[in-house]
């Protein structure tokens, strides 16, 4: 394999928004974990689609529709390649990771799970991987169990074993990388653990997919979900990977056009997956944008991306450790470029507002993980998260900004 040189300066030139200024300052974007910025290649692919080859997909017998369908379906192959799925038919397009999980909860949850079966999630889930299972519990009579985390922000294996002890857990739904702590979960081990106990496993890859090469077959994932917009693609397009035999047995999620084999007033029969789960006109332009985003990250290469982010994360942790009164939440062995912290005397919202005045964008609040905040004993945190375009200098700017805030609130 070619040893690719990671040139962050060249990468930054691919992202038009990074040349913007905010409040008269250079724009320092440290909120990629919420949504990443878009490279020119993605923007151009979407514009090109609308300008040169756009019509509805899977319907028209005319040239434009066929061409658009081809390009739309080619993205399914790209996603299958990205995840190393065994088949393109295992890739379902959704709106985002949230919709993917809701699809599984509604379709798989109400048919493959019986009342009394349990779904297990961890203490570090985004609300997107918690609330759908609460809704399933309330509607269908499944149980919802919570696997504890340790103080270092890693999965508590003892708690995991307890949760599975009575054999009732039939689905383990868990994050691949925490959006608050940056912790990676040991997904291969978890899949083996779940399968040995008769449970399926769903992985929320919203954060992980951006930073690591994901191989759903090597992991042994039954379901894997992510959103396009965190992977430098557009909003409105997400992915559900599901093992073929599982998807085959699942009923539709939404009814409408494109998801049927035949329709009469008496009854309709369903199309095969993935189309069974894609009712209505899909997000055609966004899907084509996602295809361009996948090409973009694969051209850089996940090894290079991971090495760059490892360097940034180490630098950031060292820099933050120098700031008195600042505490980083979580200290997992295997962690990535998402760092939450609190400061003595300064509230996360004040930190975010004051950094914003210096042109630095961080997230502050509960990060859609209210129960986790309770577990960590905080009401909110500030969070810096990194992308391919993040530089060491930007982390130094964060340090500089935090030192000023520290003085103000001393």
């Amino acid at each position, binding site marked *: 394999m070619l040893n690719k040189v990671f040139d962050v300066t060249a990468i930054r030139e691919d992202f038009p928004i990074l040349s913007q200024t905010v409040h008269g300052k250079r724009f320092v974007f440290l909120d990629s974990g919420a949504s990443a910025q878009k490279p020119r290649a993605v923007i151009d692919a979407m514009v090109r689609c609308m300008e040169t080859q756009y019509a509805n997909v899977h319907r028209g017998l005319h040239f434009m529709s066929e061409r658009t369908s081809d390009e739309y379906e080619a993205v399914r192959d790209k996603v299958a390649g990205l995840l190393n799925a065994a088949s393109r038919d295992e890739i379902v397009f959704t709106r985002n990771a949230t919709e993917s999980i809701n699809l599984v909860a509604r379709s798989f949850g109400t048919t493959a799970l019986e009342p009394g079966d349990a779904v297990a999630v961890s203490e570090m889930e985004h609300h997107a991987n918690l609330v759908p299972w609460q809704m399933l519990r309330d509607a269908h009579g499944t149980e919802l169990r919570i696997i504890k985390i340790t103080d270092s922000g890693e999965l508590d294996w003892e708690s995991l074993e307890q949760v599975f002890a009575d054999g009732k857990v039939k689905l383990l739904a868990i994050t691949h990388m925490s959006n608050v702590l940056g912790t990676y979960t040991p997904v291969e081990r978890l899949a083996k653990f779940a399968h040995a106990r008769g449970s399926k496993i769903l992985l929320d890859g919203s954060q992980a997919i951006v930073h690591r090469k994901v191989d759903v077959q090597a992991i042994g994932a039954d379901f894997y979900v992510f959103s396009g917009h965190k992977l430098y693609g557009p909003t409105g397009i997400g992915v559900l990977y599901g093992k073929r035999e599982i998807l085959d047995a699942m009923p539709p999620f939404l009814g409408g056009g494109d998801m049927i084999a035949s329709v009469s007033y008496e009854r309709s029969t369903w199309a095969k997956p993935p189309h069974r789960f894609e009712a209505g006109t899909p997000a055609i332009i966004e899907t084509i944008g996602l295809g361009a985003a996948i090409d973009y990250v694969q051209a850089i290469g996940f090894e290079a991306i991971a090495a760059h982010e490892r360097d940034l994360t180490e630098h950031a942790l060292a820099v933050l450790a120098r700031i008195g009164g600042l505490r980083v939440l979580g200290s997992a062995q295997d962690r990535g470029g998402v760092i939450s912290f609190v400061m003595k005397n300064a509230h996360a919202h004040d930190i975010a*507002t004051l950094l914003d005045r210096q042109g630095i964008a961080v997230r502050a609040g509960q990060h859609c993980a209210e129960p986790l905040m309770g577990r960590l004993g905080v009401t909110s945190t500030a969070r810096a998260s990194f992308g391919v375009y993040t530089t060491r200098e930007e982390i130094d700017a964060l340090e500089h900004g935090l030192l000023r805030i520290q003085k103000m*609130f001393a």
Partner: protein
Amino acid sequence: MSAELYQALIMDRSRNPRFAGRPAHFDAQAEQKNALCGDQVQVFVSSADVRHESRGCAIMTASADLMAEAVAGKIAGEIAALKKVFEKMVNSGEAAESLGELNALAGVSQFRSRIRCATLPWAALAQALEEVPHG
């Protein structure tokens, strides 16, 4: 750096609030929470005064404390009127004479996501006042 928002009065009242703490006796209390950030403010109303317990950012805490001071000795109708003027001020950024020191919060008008921090204590106070037994 944001002198317009984080000015001395706000920093002082957030660090050393004068009207903080749960009183031994009160006629009504109410709590408001900002779901976005988890901030919480509790307001206690008695015939003597208004007190607050704030767990949140500097803006919210200072706003609660300045509010408690501003409404001292006022009746419910006057407080409701003042709340309206205050809300208009933090949205427009234009100071109003009747608000006195509360005008220090005018800077939040530039930070749309922070306006709620300033108005949260007032929402709690309005809720508490509804529960005060009318005699």
